[in-house]
């Protein structure tokens, strides 16, 4: 059921969506976006790939089990919380290591810190969690014959 058009389109769409998703994640703190939305955009990219090339190809592209990715994401968020605890004694308090506060109270520098790590965690959990369910569902509904099974079938 592979479609050539979708396959070709996905080669352009998938990387674009992934880049957009990261951009959405990055700008989320100041403009509409953020980890949740970014994660959903990335999921769409991989959904297109899995529709065009098959779930196996999408899994191979991810290289890592989606649920593991989600677990890593949750780990990032937890680490971000602990980071705040270590620096300020308050769990999940934002830490901005690259921001300097001038005498008049204005802040400047690179706005990257524990908050971004937290949002990155959300991003990864959304990607991993949704893709995990989606791939599993797709494999149940339309299982792709894997090598072991074909060999079994041949022998039987």
């Amino acid at each position, binding site marked *: 059921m592979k479609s050539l058009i979708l396959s070709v389109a996905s080669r352009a769409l998938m990387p674009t969506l992934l880049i957009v998703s990261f951009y959405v994640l990055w700008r989320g703190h100041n403009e509409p976006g953020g980890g949740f939305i970014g994660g959903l955009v990335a999921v769409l990219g991989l959904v297109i790939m899995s529709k065009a090339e098959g779930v196996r190809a999408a899994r191979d592209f991810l290289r890592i089990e989606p649920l593991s990715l989600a677990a890593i994401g949750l780990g990032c968020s937890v680490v971000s919380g602990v980071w705040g605890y270590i620096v300020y004694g308050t769990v999940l308090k934002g830490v901005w290591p690259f921001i300097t506060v001038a005498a008049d109270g204005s802040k400047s520098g690179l706005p990257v810190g524990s908050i971004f790590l937290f949002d990155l965690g959300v991003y990864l959990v959304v990607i991993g*969690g949704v893709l995990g369910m989606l791939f599993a569902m797709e494999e149940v509904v339309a299982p792709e014959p894997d090598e072991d099974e074909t060999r079994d079938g041949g022998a039987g």
Partner: protein
Amino acid sequence: MRFLPALLAFMATAWFWSFLPAISAGETRSWAWAWLPDQGVELALRIDGLSLLFALLITGIGTLIFLYTAAYFRNDDRLPRLLTLLMLFGISMLGLVLADDAISLFVFWEGTTVTSFLLVGFDHNRRYARASALQALIITGLGGLALLAGLIILGQFAGTYRLSEMVLMGDAIRASEIYIAATIFVLLGCFTKSAQFPFHFWLPGAMAAPTPVSAYLHSATMVKAGVYLLMRMSPALGGTEIWMWSLTICGAITMIVGSVWAMKQDDLKLMLAHTTLMGLGALVMLLGSGTKEAAKAAVLFLLVHALYKAALFLSVGILDKQAGSRMVDDLGGLRGAMPLSFAIAALAALSMAGFPPFIGFIGKEVIYESALHSAASPLLVTGSALAANIMMVACAGLVAIKPYFGERRAQKNPGDPVFGLWFGPAVLAALGLWFGLFPAALGHDLLEPALGAVTGKAAEVKLYLWHGVNLPFLLSLLTFAAGIGLFLVIGAVRRALQAARVPGAEDGYDLGLAGIDRLSAWVTRSLQGGRMTVYLKLSFAVFAGVIWMAILMSNTELSRPDFRVPLFQFGVVVLILVSTVVVTFTPSRLIAICALGGVGSGIAMLFVMYGAIDVAMTQLLVEILVVVFFAIALLQLPRTPISLGFRPFDMALSVALGLGVIVTLWAVLGTELNLYLTEYFEKYSAPKALGRNIVNVILVDFRALDTLGEVSVVLIAAIAAVAVMRAGREARK
């Protein structure tokens, strides 16, 4: 490596031993760390005479048991798990007896419950072990909850959670109105933990644990936790009628039931478990008497019982290991093949039967002495103690004489065990003799400070092997005579007992459990139809009910709606309405899904119009993904069209829910919007959290804890969903 726990326990024993001079001089030691300062809860530890006695029992017997365990399981790869659990248990138990803070005590108390559960269910592939572990957990766990309630009531009344301060307020507590409630709750906790009637039945079941575990937890230490707490709390709660009678009666019944049931057991380990019930009952009964003499007897018997019972359990373990069985009828004549094991069993059994010059004899004398002066009922207490002790003599014979004399019987070729197996019980049995011969130092150094803690005032303990010819001595002679007589006819007694079928409290437990099972099965059948439509209907019905209840209970005034909205918005609303109608009336699943997508997109557009870009983006993306999910699921669904019969209940439900939501929203529009939070976030989002997108800042900074919870739920849901789907795929293969 496998001897490390024993070494650690030995070091702990030595460390506690080093406190002995100071404690027996009447001092105490205490440490405290803040834990929940707002609630007045701390991790407070305190060593006084009673704690020290228990700590020495726990670490000392622990050392020997850990050594024994390492030998008993030496060729078993489960040894590390067993030792780890035993160590965890030992630590919890130590914490329990050292804790001075009621809440810390409860935490350690539950620690022993949980480790006991894991240890009883150690052979987790045996159904009986699992059921027994669960039974022990349910009974002691429920008691633990009652105990927590009791301790909190006491703590709130006393204004302190320090036990050492509570016990000084005994008179005030006894005079207060919380006394009855607090006492009942604390007693429930103690009685379940120490297996007092009517909660006694979990203890024999707990014998599903490996023998060293039973010796340690279910005879020498954990089941004494309830007794410990009764001792600890007696200055605060004791001395009243309710205390005296509930302890005396429950203790006496437990003692008699345990003794009678012990005689009929075939399994030596189960027999010992029932004699443990006898020991625990005796301790509780003595504590109920309320006299100083009785408290002294209790403290002494605690030590006596721990020594002989642990030794006997371990020697039954030796029989099991070396002779291949622990059934009374399978064993006999092993004296020649296992002389050392016989000597150990004999020493311990003589102490259990209370023969001189063992410490058991002194213990029994002191018990009779105090029973004759019991404040409750001398006749009842002395009578039941006498009956139980006679039966103990017979049981001691069954454990130490039956397997070693007579015709030689064994399941395999028996012989004395390795050092690790005989050392522990030998030390314990020898201590029983040593203390019997030299009781004075024991009484003064160890028991006197413990007694002081139980009675709340300084006390003197003078122990003698020879009391002279007095009434207790005569009772002892009667015990020996009757006990030996009973042992001679034990075969007939056992047959008679085994033939009798008496309903016990355990049947009540089974009935209760079966009732709960049936109830939950019924609830599950009614609520969990297993069909998506049933779940949805149920959820929506509850939702509609709640909404309408809220509407009807508040006197909502509906304002006149304002229809002056831009035309474009009307367009979106029409899109949503049309899509909804299509969803409801189309027979094609594909069209229904697309139309649902239309509803979602329309709502997303409304969000855009009101400036909620983030929400709109999320809504749109979720909408797209839902269509993808549905599309995949569609491949599995039947191709037949949806049947569109008229379903009045569903329609009524939809109308009720829809109207409810409309009325609620309408009412909300009429109220004044509280902008406090909005203004707060607008003001602080950029300067404090360095972000101008308030929605995102709320998600990842201000309310990050909520988000953390949500992403955890996403992950858990995904794991569950993937597992379910994989299971379905496996099943189909």
